[in-house]
Protein backbone atom coordinates (compact mmCIF):
# COMPACT_ATOMS: atom_id res chain seq x y z
CA UNK A 1 0.00 0.00 0.00
CA UNK A 2 1.44 3.37 -0.94
CA UNK A 3 2.43 5.91 1.65
CA UNK A 4 -0.26 8.41 2.43
CA UNK A 5 0.01 11.68 4.22
CA UNK A 6 2.72 12.64 1.78
CA UNK A 7 3.02 15.89 -0.02
CA UNK A 8 0.38 16.19 -2.69
CA UNK A 9 -2.41 14.79 -0.63
CA UNK A 10 -2.20 17.38 2.04
CA UNK A 11 -1.48 20.33 -0.15
CA UNK A 12 -4.05 22.65 -1.63
CA UNK A 13 -5.09 22.87 -5.22
CA UNK A 14 -2.21 25.09 -6.07
CA UNK A 15 1.31 24.40 -4.95
CA UNK A 16 0.37 20.75 -4.73
CA UNK A 17 3.98 19.73 -4.33
CA UNK A 18 4.69 22.28 -1.67
CA UNK A 19 4.13 19.56 0.88
CA UNK A 20 3.14 21.94 3.56
CA UNK A 21 1.57 19.76 6.12
CA UNK A 22 0.79 21.34 9.39
CA UNK A 23 2.96 22.90 12.01
CA UNK A 24 1.91 19.95 14.06
CA UNK A 25 4.42 20.34 16.80
CA UNK A 26 3.60 18.63 20.02
CA UNK A 27 4.97 19.22 23.45
CA UNK A 28 6.91 15.98 23.12
CA UNK A 29 8.75 17.21 20.06
CA UNK A 30 9.88 20.31 21.90
CA UNK A 31 10.81 18.56 25.12
CA UNK A 32 14.48 18.40 25.80
CA UNK A 33 15.32 20.73 22.94
CA UNK A 34 17.14 23.81 24.06
CA UNK A 35 15.61 26.08 21.45
CA UNK A 36 12.22 24.47 21.14
CA UNK A 37 11.29 23.88 17.50
CA UNK A 38 14.03 26.16 16.15
CA UNK A 39 16.67 24.22 14.29
CA UNK A 40 20.24 24.32 15.56
CA UNK A 41 22.62 26.64 13.78
CA UNK A 42 24.75 29.74 14.01
CA UNK A 43 22.64 32.43 15.70
CA UNK A 44 19.93 30.16 17.06
CA UNK A 45 20.51 31.26 20.65
CA UNK A 46 20.21 34.99 19.88
CA UNK A 47 17.19 34.36 17.67
CA UNK A 48 15.40 32.12 20.13
CA UNK A 49 15.73 34.44 23.11
CA UNK A 50 14.94 37.57 21.11
CA UNK A 51 11.77 36.10 19.61
CA UNK A 52 10.48 34.25 22.64
CA UNK A 53 10.62 37.36 24.80
CA UNK A 54 7.18 38.07 23.34
CA UNK A 55 5.91 35.04 21.45
CA UNK A 56 6.38 31.35 20.85
CA UNK A 57 9.12 30.14 18.53
CA UNK A 58 6.35 28.06 16.94
CA UNK A 59 5.16 31.15 15.08
CA UNK A 60 8.68 31.74 13.73
CA UNK A 61 9.29 28.26 12.38
CA UNK A 62 6.06 28.32 10.36
CA UNK A 63 7.26 31.26 8.27
CA UNK A 64 9.19 31.38 5.03
CA UNK A 65 10.76 34.76 4.30
CA UNK A 66 13.75 36.18 2.50
CA UNK A 67 16.37 38.01 4.55
CA UNK A 68 14.77 41.25 3.40
CA UNK A 69 11.36 39.95 4.44
CA UNK A 70 12.64 39.05 7.90
CA UNK A 71 14.31 42.48 8.13
CA UNK A 72 10.94 44.15 7.47
CA UNK A 73 9.29 41.91 10.04
CA UNK A 74 11.81 43.04 12.64
CA UNK A 75 11.20 46.68 11.63
CA UNK A 76 7.48 46.18 12.13
CA UNK A 77 7.89 44.48 15.50
CA UNK A 78 10.19 47.27 16.71
CA UNK A 79 8.01 50.09 15.37
CA UNK A 80 4.60 48.75 16.27
CA UNK A 81 4.80 45.74 18.56
CA UNK A 82 6.95 46.94 21.41
CA UNK A 83 10.06 44.95 20.51
CA UNK A 84 13.32 46.35 21.93
CA UNK A 85 15.81 47.20 19.18
CA UNK A 86 18.64 44.64 19.08
CA UNK A 87 22.14 46.00 18.54
CA UNK A 88 23.28 45.92 14.89
CA UNK A 89 25.62 42.95 15.27
CA UNK A 90 22.96 40.90 17.00
CA UNK A 91 20.35 41.92 14.46
CA UNK A 92 22.62 40.78 11.62
CA UNK A 93 23.21 37.45 13.34
CA UNK A 94 19.47 36.91 13.81
CA UNK A 95 18.73 37.81 10.19
CA UNK A 96 21.46 35.48 8.95
CA UNK A 97 20.03 32.63 11.00
CA UNK A 98 16.44 33.24 9.89
CA UNK A 99 17.38 33.69 6.23
CA UNK A 100 19.44 30.49 6.28
CA UNK A 101 16.83 28.34 7.99
CA UNK A 102 13.42 29.92 7.38
CA UNK A 103 13.56 31.23 3.85
CA UNK A 104 10.89 31.09 1.15
CA UNK A 105 11.96 27.57 0.12
CA UNK A 106 10.91 26.49 3.62
CA UNK A 107 13.71 24.04 4.32
CA UNK A 108 12.58 23.55 7.92
CA UNK A 109 8.84 23.89 7.69
CA UNK A 110 7.46 21.76 10.56
CA UNK A 111 6.62 18.20 9.52
CA UNK A 112 6.99 18.60 5.81
Amino acid at each position, binding site marked *: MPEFGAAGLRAGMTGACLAVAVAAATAQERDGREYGLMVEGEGVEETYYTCTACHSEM*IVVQQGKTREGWDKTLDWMIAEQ*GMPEPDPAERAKILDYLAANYNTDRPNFPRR
Partner: protein
Amino acid sequence: MTSNRSTDELRRLLAEDPAAADLALFGRVSHADRRGFLRGAGLAAMSTAVGMAIPYHRNIPQGFIPAAMAQGDPLAGKLGLVLLSDRPVNAETPPELLDDDITPTDRHFIRNNGVPPEDMNPETWTLTIDGFVDTPLELSIADLRDQFEVVSLALTLECGGNGRAFFDPPASGNQWTWGAVGCAEWTGVRLREVLDKAGVQANVVYTGHHGADTHLSGDPGKEPISRGMPIGKAMTDNILIAFAMNGADLHPMNGAPLRLVVPGWPGSCSQKWLTRIELRDRVHDGEKMGGDSYRVPAHPVAPGTEVPEEEFEIIERMPVKSVITFPANGAAPVTETEVRGHAWSGDRTIEAVDISTDFGATWMAAEVDPPLNDGAWQNWRASVVFPMPGYYEVWARARDSEGVMQPFAIDWNPKGYLNNSMHRVGLQVA
Protein backbone atom coordinates in the same frame (compact mmCIF):
# COMPACT_ATOMS: atom_id res chain seq x y z
CA MET B 1 -6.36 16.33 43.08
CA THR B 2 -5.09 19.55 41.61
CA SER B 3 -4.33 17.97 38.27
CA ASN B 4 -8.01 17.39 37.62
CA ARG B 5 -8.93 21.01 38.07
CA SER B 6 -8.91 23.58 35.30
CA THR B 7 -6.69 26.62 35.61
CA ASP B 8 -9.80 28.78 35.72
CA GLU B 9 -11.20 26.82 38.58
CA LEU B 10 -7.91 27.13 40.44
CA ARG B 11 -7.93 30.87 39.87
CA ARG B 12 -11.51 31.20 41.04
CA LEU B 13 -10.94 29.22 44.20
CA LEU B 14 -7.75 31.06 45.05
CA ALA B 15 -9.33 34.46 44.40
CA GLU B 16 -12.25 33.75 46.72
CA ASP B 17 -10.25 32.70 49.76
CA PRO B 18 -6.55 32.10 49.21
CA ALA B 19 -5.92 30.43 52.55
CA ALA B 20 -8.90 28.09 52.28
CA ALA B 21 -8.11 27.28 48.68
CA ASP B 22 -4.46 26.60 49.50
CA LEU B 23 -5.60 24.16 52.15
CA ALA B 24 -8.15 22.51 49.89
CA LEU B 25 -5.95 22.33 46.80
CA PHE B 26 -2.54 21.62 48.18
CA GLY B 27 -3.15 20.86 51.85
CA ARG B 28 -1.12 24.00 52.36
CA VAL B 29 -0.89 26.16 55.49
CA SER B 30 1.23 29.32 55.14
CA HIS B 31 3.47 30.92 57.74
CA ALA B 32 2.13 33.96 59.64
CA ASP B 33 3.58 36.23 56.94
CA ARG B 34 1.32 34.45 54.42
CA ARG B 35 4.30 32.98 52.65
CA GLY B 36 5.87 29.58 52.46
CA PHE B 37 4.52 26.29 53.75
CA LEU B 38 4.10 25.96 57.55
CA ARG B 39 5.76 22.69 58.62
CA GLY B 40 5.97 21.86 54.95
CA ALA B 41 2.25 21.38 54.76
CA GLY B 42 1.26 21.09 51.10
CA LEU B 43 4.76 21.54 49.72
CA ALA B 44 4.88 17.96 48.50
CA ALA B 45 1.56 18.39 46.73
CA MET B 46 2.69 21.54 44.96
CA SER B 47 6.05 20.00 44.07
CA THR B 48 4.27 17.01 42.61
CA ALA B 49 2.02 19.33 40.65
CA VAL B 50 4.95 21.18 39.06
CA GLY B 51 6.95 18.00 38.67
CA MET B 52 10.02 18.83 40.75
CA ALA B 53 11.36 20.32 43.97
CA ILE B 54 10.84 24.04 44.62
CA PRO B 55 14.07 25.31 46.26
CA TYR B 56 12.69 28.79 47.10
CA HIS B 57 9.39 27.53 48.44
CA ARG B 58 9.67 29.66 51.60
CA ASN B 59 9.01 32.77 49.46
CA ILE B 60 5.86 31.56 47.75
CA PRO B 61 2.91 33.76 48.75
CA GLN B 62 -0.44 32.44 49.87
CA GLY B 63 -2.91 31.77 47.05
CA PHE B 64 -0.16 31.44 44.49
CA ILE B 65 -0.54 29.35 41.34
CA PRO B 66 2.83 28.10 40.07
CA ALA B 67 3.37 29.29 36.50
CA ALA B 68 3.98 25.71 35.43
CA MET B 69 0.36 25.00 36.32
CA ALA B 70 -1.14 28.36 35.39
CA GLN B 71 0.30 28.09 31.92
CA GLY B 72 -1.40 24.76 31.63
CA ASP B 73 -2.25 22.95 28.44
CA PRO B 74 -3.12 25.50 25.77
CA LEU B 75 -5.50 22.97 24.25
CA ALA B 76 -7.31 21.99 27.47
CA GLY B 77 -10.92 21.26 26.62
CA LYS B 78 -10.08 20.73 22.95
CA LEU B 79 -9.86 17.38 21.20
CA GLY B 80 -7.63 16.57 18.23
CA LEU B 81 -6.75 20.14 17.33
CA VAL B 82 -3.37 20.89 15.78
CA LEU B 83 -1.40 23.48 17.74
CA LEU B 84 0.17 26.08 15.43
CA SER B 85 1.47 28.30 18.21
CA ASP B 86 1.29 28.32 21.99
CA ARG B 87 1.94 32.04 22.61
CA PRO B 88 -0.37 33.32 21.32
CA VAL B 89 -2.43 30.15 21.21
CA ASN B 90 -3.54 29.20 17.72
CA ALA B 91 -4.91 25.80 16.82
CA GLU B 92 -6.89 24.37 13.93
CA THR B 93 -9.09 21.34 13.40
CA PRO B 94 -8.16 18.59 10.92
CA PRO B 95 -10.94 18.51 8.27
CA GLU B 96 -12.09 15.00 9.18
CA LEU B 97 -12.75 16.20 12.74
CA LEU B 98 -15.13 18.87 11.41
CA ASP B 99 -17.59 16.16 10.36
CA ASP B 100 -20.37 17.17 12.78
CA ASP B 101 -23.23 19.28 11.41
CA ILE B 102 -22.73 21.63 14.35
CA THR B 103 -19.12 21.95 15.48
CA PRO B 104 -18.69 20.76 19.08
CA THR B 105 -16.81 23.16 21.33
CA ASP B 106 -13.87 20.77 21.66
CA ARG B 107 -13.48 20.78 17.85
CA HIS B 108 -13.73 24.52 17.36
CA PHE B 109 -10.52 26.25 16.25
CA ILE B 110 -8.67 28.86 18.34
CA ARG B 111 -7.23 32.05 16.94
CA ASN B 112 -5.69 34.35 19.55
CA ASN B 113 -3.74 37.54 18.92
CA GLY B 114 -2.67 38.25 22.47
CA VAL B 115 -2.82 36.83 25.96
CA PRO B 116 -6.31 35.89 27.20
CA PRO B 117 -7.44 37.76 30.31
CA GLU B 118 -6.98 36.03 33.65
CA ASP B 119 -10.38 37.14 34.87
CA MET B 120 -13.19 35.65 32.81
CA ASN B 121 -15.82 35.89 35.53
CA PRO B 122 -19.30 36.15 33.93
CA GLU B 123 -20.76 37.55 37.18
CA THR B 124 -18.63 40.69 37.14
CA TRP B 125 -18.12 41.15 33.38
CA THR B 126 -19.42 44.33 31.79
CA LEU B 127 -19.90 45.47 28.22
CA THR B 128 -19.78 49.17 27.36
CA ILE B 129 -21.57 50.61 24.30
CA ASP B 130 -20.39 54.14 23.63
CA GLY B 131 -19.23 56.57 20.99
CA PHE B 132 -21.89 58.23 18.83
CA VAL B 133 -24.92 56.86 20.66
CA ASP B 134 -27.83 58.65 22.33
CA THR B 135 -27.38 56.72 25.59
CA PRO B 136 -24.12 55.00 26.41
CA LEU B 137 -24.75 51.63 28.03
CA GLU B 138 -22.90 49.54 30.56
CA LEU B 139 -24.38 46.07 30.69
CA SER B 140 -23.61 42.99 32.73
CA ILE B 141 -24.21 39.59 31.17
CA ALA B 142 -27.29 39.33 33.40
CA ASP B 143 -28.48 42.66 31.96
CA LEU B 144 -28.05 41.33 28.45
CA ARG B 145 -30.11 38.26 29.31
CA ASP B 146 -32.80 40.31 31.04
CA GLN B 147 -33.17 43.21 28.64
CA PHE B 148 -32.94 41.51 25.26
CA GLU B 149 -34.28 38.43 23.54
CA VAL B 150 -31.90 35.49 24.04
CA VAL B 151 -31.42 33.59 20.80
CA SER B 152 -29.41 30.55 19.70
CA LEU B 153 -28.02 30.41 16.18
CA ALA B 154 -25.62 28.13 14.33
CA LEU B 155 -23.02 30.56 12.96
CA THR B 156 -19.99 29.97 10.77
CA LEU B 157 -16.73 31.54 11.85
CA GLU B 158 -13.69 31.33 9.61
CA CYS B 159 -10.31 32.92 10.12
CA GLY B 160 -9.45 35.33 7.29
CA GLY B 161 -6.16 33.46 6.88
CA ASN B 162 -7.60 29.94 6.64
CA GLY B 163 -5.67 28.21 3.83
CA ARG B 164 -2.63 30.49 4.11
CA ALA B 165 -0.29 27.49 4.30
CA PHE B 166 -0.67 26.91 0.55
CA PHE B 167 0.48 30.34 -0.58
CA ASP B 168 3.62 30.40 -2.69
CA PRO B 169 5.63 32.51 -2.06
CA PRO B 170 4.71 31.97 1.57
CA ALA B 171 2.57 34.57 3.29
CA SER B 172 3.32 35.74 6.79
CA GLY B 173 1.19 34.59 9.70
CA ASN B 174 -0.18 31.38 11.14
CA GLN B 175 0.03 28.69 8.50
CA TRP B 176 -3.56 27.51 8.63
CA THR B 177 -4.48 24.68 6.28
CA TRP B 178 -8.24 24.00 6.19
CA GLY B 179 -9.32 23.88 9.79
CA ALA B 180 -9.64 27.51 10.93
CA VAL B 181 -13.40 27.25 10.46
CA GLY B 182 -16.32 26.01 12.50
CA CYS B 183 -20.04 26.35 12.92
CA ALA B 184 -21.04 26.09 16.57
CA GLU B 185 -24.40 26.94 18.08
CA TRP B 186 -23.98 30.30 19.78
CA THR B 187 -26.38 31.76 22.33
CA GLY B 188 -26.62 35.44 23.10
CA VAL B 189 -28.46 38.60 22.16
CA ARG B 190 -28.60 40.35 18.82
CA LEU B 191 -26.03 43.12 18.46
CA ARG B 192 -28.64 45.12 16.52
CA GLU B 193 -31.03 45.18 19.47
CA VAL B 194 -28.34 46.37 21.84
CA LEU B 195 -27.23 49.10 19.43
CA ASP B 196 -30.88 50.14 18.92
CA LYS B 197 -31.28 50.50 22.66
CA ALA B 198 -28.20 52.73 22.84
CA GLY B 199 -29.51 54.77 19.91
CA VAL B 200 -27.20 54.83 16.87
CA GLN B 201 -26.63 58.42 15.78
CA ALA B 202 -26.94 59.44 12.14
CA ASN B 203 -23.22 60.04 11.62
CA VAL B 204 -22.15 56.52 12.59
CA VAL B 205 -20.38 54.60 9.83
CA TYR B 206 -18.34 51.95 11.65
CA THR B 207 -18.00 49.96 14.86
CA GLY B 208 -14.84 49.51 16.91
CA HIS B 209 -14.54 46.41 19.10
CA HIS B 210 -12.42 46.02 22.22
CA GLY B 211 -11.55 43.00 24.32
CA ALA B 212 -9.85 42.21 27.61
CA ASP B 213 -6.96 40.24 26.15
CA THR B 214 -3.52 41.81 26.55
CA HIS B 215 -0.67 42.50 24.16
CA LEU B 216 2.09 39.90 23.78
CA SER B 217 4.74 42.51 24.60
CA GLY B 218 3.14 43.05 28.01
CA ASP B 219 2.59 46.74 27.19
CA PRO B 220 -0.70 47.62 28.95
CA GLY B 221 -1.17 50.54 26.55
CA LYS B 222 -1.42 48.27 23.51
CA GLU B 223 -4.37 46.19 22.39
CA PRO B 224 -3.56 42.91 20.64
CA ILE B 225 -6.45 43.35 18.22
CA SER B 226 -9.35 45.77 17.89
CA ARG B 227 -11.35 45.51 14.70
CA GLY B 228 -14.75 46.72 13.55
CA MET B 229 -17.25 46.64 10.73
CA PRO B 230 -19.50 48.99 8.75
CA ILE B 231 -22.61 49.95 10.73
CA GLY B 232 -24.84 48.43 8.02
CA LYS B 233 -23.23 45.06 8.65
CA ALA B 234 -23.43 45.51 12.42
CA MET B 235 -27.21 45.93 12.16
CA THR B 236 -27.61 42.48 10.52
CA ASP B 237 -29.96 40.20 12.46
CA ASN B 238 -27.57 37.23 12.65
CA ILE B 239 -24.80 38.92 14.63
CA LEU B 240 -24.73 37.92 18.28
CA ILE B 241 -23.17 39.15 21.47
CA ALA B 242 -22.71 35.60 22.70
CA PHE B 243 -22.32 34.23 26.21
CA ALA B 244 -22.81 30.53 25.47
CA MET B 245 -21.51 28.03 22.96
CA ASN B 246 -23.27 24.75 22.25
CA GLY B 247 -25.44 25.19 25.33
CA ALA B 248 -22.58 25.73 27.78
CA ASP B 249 -20.31 28.58 28.86
CA LEU B 250 -17.93 29.85 26.22
CA HIS B 251 -14.61 28.03 26.14
CA PRO B 252 -11.87 30.27 27.64
CA MET B 253 -9.92 30.20 24.37
CA ASN B 254 -13.05 31.02 22.38
CA GLY B 255 -13.63 34.26 24.25
CA ALA B 256 -15.29 33.49 27.60
CA PRO B 257 -17.37 34.93 29.07
CA LEU B 258 -18.56 37.25 26.25
CA ARG B 259 -17.76 37.70 22.59
CA LEU B 260 -19.10 38.90 19.28
CA VAL B 261 -20.05 36.36 16.64
CA VAL B 262 -20.13 37.89 13.16
CA PRO B 263 -20.81 35.02 10.75
CA GLY B 264 -19.35 35.01 7.25
CA TRP B 265 -16.80 37.77 7.86
CA PRO B 266 -13.18 37.26 8.94
CA GLY B 267 -13.15 35.81 12.45
CA SER B 268 -11.24 38.86 13.65
CA CYS B 269 -14.48 40.89 13.44
CA SER B 270 -15.85 38.63 16.19
CA GLN B 271 -13.99 40.21 19.12
CA LYS B 272 -13.36 37.79 21.97
CA TRP B 273 -13.42 38.65 25.69
CA LEU B 274 -15.61 41.54 24.55
CA THR B 275 -15.65 44.61 26.83
CA ARG B 276 -16.59 47.54 24.61
CA ILE B 277 -18.17 48.45 21.30
CA GLU B 278 -17.72 52.03 20.19
CA LEU B 279 -19.76 53.57 17.40
CA ARG B 280 -17.65 55.76 15.18
CA ASP B 281 -18.11 58.47 12.56
CA ARG B 282 -15.19 57.05 10.61
CA VAL B 283 -13.63 53.69 9.83
CA HIS B 284 -12.09 52.11 12.91
CA ASP B 285 -8.36 52.62 13.35
CA GLY B 286 -7.73 49.94 15.99
CA GLU B 287 -4.95 47.38 16.02
CA LYS B 288 -5.00 45.20 12.86
CA MET B 289 -7.35 47.52 10.97
CA GLY B 290 -4.55 49.06 8.91
CA GLY B 291 -1.42 48.11 6.99
CA ASP B 292 -1.73 44.69 5.45
CA SER B 293 -3.80 43.20 8.32
CA TYR B 294 -7.08 41.70 7.15
CA ARG B 295 -6.66 43.67 3.94
CA VAL B 296 -6.04 42.56 0.37
CA PRO B 297 -5.01 44.43 -2.77
CA ALA B 298 -7.98 46.07 -4.50
CA HIS B 299 -6.88 44.40 -7.75
CA PRO B 300 -5.41 40.96 -8.54
CA VAL B 301 -1.63 40.75 -8.24
CA ALA B 302 0.98 38.25 -9.40
CA PRO B 303 2.33 35.99 -6.65
CA GLY B 304 5.15 37.71 -4.79
CA THR B 305 4.19 41.25 -5.79
CA GLU B 306 5.06 44.05 -3.39
CA VAL B 307 1.85 46.02 -3.05
CA PRO B 308 1.84 49.64 -1.80
CA GLU B 309 -0.28 50.15 1.32
CA GLU B 310 -2.70 52.55 -0.36
CA GLU B 311 -3.73 49.80 -2.78
CA PHE B 312 -5.13 47.58 -0.02
CA GLU B 313 -8.76 47.42 1.01
CA ILE B 314 -10.40 45.92 4.10
CA ILE B 315 -11.72 42.37 3.73
CA GLU B 316 -15.46 42.16 4.27
CA ARG B 317 -17.38 38.94 3.51
CA MET B 318 -15.51 35.63 3.24
CA PRO B 319 -15.70 33.90 -0.16
CA VAL B 320 -17.57 30.73 -1.20
CA LYS B 321 -15.84 27.63 0.17
CA SER B 322 -16.35 24.00 1.08
CA VAL B 323 -14.57 21.31 3.04
CA ILE B 324 -14.70 17.53 2.73
CA THR B 325 -15.03 15.97 6.19
CA PHE B 326 -15.59 12.34 5.17
CA PRO B 327 -13.73 10.29 4.13
CA ALA B 328 -10.50 11.59 5.63
CA ASN B 329 -7.57 12.25 3.36
CA GLY B 330 -5.66 8.98 2.98
CA ALA B 331 -8.62 6.77 3.91
CA ALA B 332 -9.17 3.40 2.23
CA PRO B 333 -12.91 3.07 1.55
CA VAL B 334 -14.57 0.32 -0.47
CA THR B 335 -15.81 1.05 -3.99
CA GLU B 336 -19.01 2.69 -2.81
CA THR B 337 -18.93 5.37 -0.15
CA GLU B 338 -20.66 8.46 1.07
CA VAL B 339 -18.71 11.69 0.71
CA ARG B 340 -19.80 14.63 2.83
CA GLY B 341 -18.86 17.98 4.24
CA HIS B 342 -19.93 21.59 4.63
CA ALA B 343 -20.10 24.65 2.39
CA TRP B 344 -20.53 28.35 3.12
CA SER B 345 -20.28 31.79 1.55
CA GLY B 346 -20.29 34.96 3.62
CA ASP B 347 -23.65 36.82 3.52
CA ARG B 348 -24.85 34.36 0.86
CA THR B 349 -26.22 30.84 0.65
CA ILE B 350 -24.89 27.78 -1.16
CA GLU B 351 -26.82 26.77 -4.27
CA ALA B 352 -24.85 23.68 -5.21
CA VAL B 353 -21.88 21.52 -4.34
CA ASP B 354 -20.38 19.42 -7.12
CA ILE B 355 -18.06 16.46 -6.61
CA SER B 356 -15.43 15.07 -8.94
CA THR B 357 -13.62 11.76 -8.49
CA ASP B 358 -11.65 11.95 -11.74
CA PHE B 359 -9.40 14.97 -11.19
CA GLY B 360 -12.03 17.42 -12.35
CA ALA B 361 -12.93 15.81 -15.69
CA THR B 362 -16.56 15.11 -14.72
CA TRP B 363 -18.71 16.39 -11.90
CA MET B 364 -21.79 15.18 -10.05
CA ALA B 365 -24.18 17.16 -7.87
CA ALA B 366 -24.18 16.54 -4.13
CA GLU B 367 -27.30 16.82 -2.00
CA VAL B 368 -27.13 20.17 -0.15
CA ASP B 369 -29.17 20.95 2.96
CA PRO B 370 -30.53 24.44 3.55
CA PRO B 371 -28.74 26.32 6.34
CA LEU B 372 -30.14 25.75 9.83
CA ASN B 373 -30.47 29.54 10.00
CA ASP B 374 -29.03 32.60 8.30
CA GLY B 375 -25.27 32.52 8.91
CA ALA B 376 -24.90 28.74 9.30
CA TRP B 377 -22.86 26.61 6.93
CA GLN B 378 -24.70 24.05 4.82
CA ASN B 379 -24.14 20.33 5.04
CA TRP B 380 -23.83 18.29 1.88
CA ARG B 381 -23.37 14.66 0.94
CA ALA B 382 -23.04 12.47 -2.12
CA SER B 383 -22.90 8.76 -2.76
CA VAL B 384 -19.84 7.95 -4.81
CA VAL B 385 -19.12 4.73 -6.72
CA PHE B 386 -15.57 4.04 -7.83
CA PRO B 387 -15.32 1.79 -10.93
CA MET B 388 -12.36 -0.23 -9.63
CA PRO B 389 -9.85 -0.24 -6.79
CA GLY B 390 -7.06 2.28 -7.02
CA TYR B 391 -6.06 5.83 -6.17
CA TYR B 392 -8.75 8.48 -6.44
CA GLU B 393 -9.13 12.05 -5.35
CA VAL B 394 -12.43 13.54 -4.32
CA TRP B 395 -12.71 17.21 -5.14
CA ALA B 396 -15.54 19.43 -3.93
CA ARG B 397 -16.61 22.72 -5.50
CA ALA B 398 -19.35 24.89 -4.02
CA ARG B 399 -21.40 27.49 -5.91
CA ASP B 400 -23.15 30.29 -4.05
CA SER B 401 -26.38 32.25 -4.52
CA GLU B 402 -24.58 34.79 -6.70
CA GLY B 403 -23.38 32.02 -9.04
CA VAL B 404 -19.79 32.28 -7.82
CA MET B 405 -17.82 29.01 -7.61
CA GLN B 406 -14.67 28.04 -5.77
CA PRO B 407 -11.60 28.50 -7.94
CA PHE B 408 -8.98 25.90 -8.73
CA ALA B 409 -6.05 28.22 -7.99
CA ILE B 410 -5.23 30.65 -5.20
CA ASP B 411 -5.78 34.36 -5.78
CA TRP B 412 -2.44 35.23 -4.18
CA ASN B 413 -2.22 38.26 -1.92
CA PRO B 414 0.64 39.42 0.33
CA LYS B 415 -0.79 38.33 3.69
CA GLY B 416 -2.34 35.06 2.62
CA TYR B 417 -6.03 35.78 3.07
CA LEU B 418 -9.19 34.38 1.48
CA ASN B 419 -7.87 31.11 0.08
CA ASN B 420 -11.08 29.45 -1.03
CA SER B 421 -9.56 27.08 -3.57
CA MET B 422 -11.11 23.61 -3.75
CA HIS B 423 -10.44 21.04 -1.05
CA ARG B 424 -9.51 17.54 -2.16
CA VAL B 425 -8.88 14.26 -0.41
CA GLY B 426 -6.86 11.33 -1.69
CA LEU B 427 -8.41 7.86 -1.32
CA GLN B 428 -6.91 4.40 -1.66
CA VAL B 429 -10.02 2.53 -2.76
CA ALA B 430 -9.87 -1.16 -1.89
